[in-house]
């Protein structure tokens, strides 16, 4: 076959597994007993066709090519005694399992596509032109995606580098700060030991300590002692 014969097919595959399924169907072979030499040869021809067309070949296609070649070489080897002991595993087993799973989900995707999709097969009322109510009393569930998207939007506008990376540690510290403020709002006053005692692990202990320091620095909480070396009491500063 020439490169042109493969060309038309290239963009209809959703990935290497899809291409492999296509080859199995085309050759009318049993998925549980794939003639690996034949399928590998055809698979490679597709890869070469893609390369010769200078298509941006996704790395996943090459990974599967390597897997196929590896299986092929293992199948050519005589079964050694060691393999016998290990229960004589078919080198194709793992790949077949993966293919079957992918096939199931491909069918499931087609199943979803056959459903009556709102906006394609069935339609609801268009509410766009209707006036929006001003009163906003309850909030609907909002996806985090919308929030991050908003943050990303402004970070791009500003282009500030320090805005770009917020690590989990900062958020963990914010969590602890919020917990402590919550606890103080509920109970009015806590001792330093109260706060440090209920910390299960070392990491949490450090966050608790850093949170208290941050809160004192920001003057969100006040810490005081009645006598030197006495109990340190903590309360909210704004009350």
């Amino acid at each position, binding site marked *: 076959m020439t490169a042109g014969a493969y060309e038309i097919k290239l963009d209809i595959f*959703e*990935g*290497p*597994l*899809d291409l492999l399924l296509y080859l199995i169907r085309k050759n009318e072979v049993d998925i549980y007993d794939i003639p690996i030499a034949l399928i590998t040869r055809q698979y490679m021809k597709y890869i070469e066709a893609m390369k010769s067309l200078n298509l941006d070949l*996704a790395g*996943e296609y090459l990974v*599967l090519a390597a897997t196929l070649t590896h299986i092929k070489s293992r199948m050519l080897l005589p079964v050694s005694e060691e393999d016998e002991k290990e229960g004589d595993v078919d080198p194709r087993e793992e790949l077949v399992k*993966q293919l*079957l*799973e*992918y*096939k*199931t*989900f*491909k*069918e*499931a*995707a*087609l*199943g*979803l*596509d056959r*459903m*009556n*999709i*709102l*906006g*394609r*097969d*069935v*339609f*609801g*009322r268009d*509410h766009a032109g209707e006036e929006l109510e001003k009163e906003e009393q309850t909030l609907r*569930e909002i*996806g*985090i*995606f919308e929030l991050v998207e908003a943050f990303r939007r402004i970070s791009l506008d500003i282009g500030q580098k320090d805005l770009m990376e917020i690590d*989990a540690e900062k958020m963990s510290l914010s969590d602890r700060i919020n917990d402590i403020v919550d606890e103080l709002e509920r109970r009015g006053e806590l001792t330093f030991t109260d706060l440090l005692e209920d910390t299960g692990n070392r990491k949490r202990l450090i966050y608790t300590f850093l949170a208290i320091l941050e809160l004192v620095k920001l003057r969100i909480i006040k810490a005081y002692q009645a006598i030197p070396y006495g109990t340190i009491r903590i309360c909210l500063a704004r009350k």
Partner: protein
Amino acid sequence: MDNLKAIIEALIFVSDVPVTSSRIEGVLEDVKEKEISFAINDLIREYEERSGGIFLKEVAGGYQFRTGEAVGSWVQKLKGQKQASLSPAAMETLAVVAYRQPVMRSEVEKVRGVDISGTLRGLLEKNLIRIVGRKDVPGRPMIYGTTGKFLETFGLKTLSDLPTLREFKELGE
């Protein structure tokens, strides 16, 4: 038509999202839950029997008026531009998320055998899937699940209305 049914019909009609029975109960304070559910079922049946252009359907845990399948192509014609459907790649990612949820990105990629960042983002933007949290393993990867909008879009009452994966397995063999 009795008054209760008329009110419920109007409430469902004016809403842009499926109306849950608890929202209807919230408006009709003094009416018993059972009466409301009877009235809704009556309405659903009446529209079904009438077999006109619109139907009352139970979707995503609520109720919504929708056009019938038979007239879909005419509505499409009125609306002009063809609605962008999901690409096969996006549909595959959606299928894995729907059936495997809560699921990590890496798990979906393992099944599909490809990088899914593009389709994942598209589905998040369309609000068909959402981040539901993080998995408690090293690196705390994000986990994904489907949304109410997903149920609404595919006309499902709940996730358990999805055909079982077994059905597709048999299809494939």
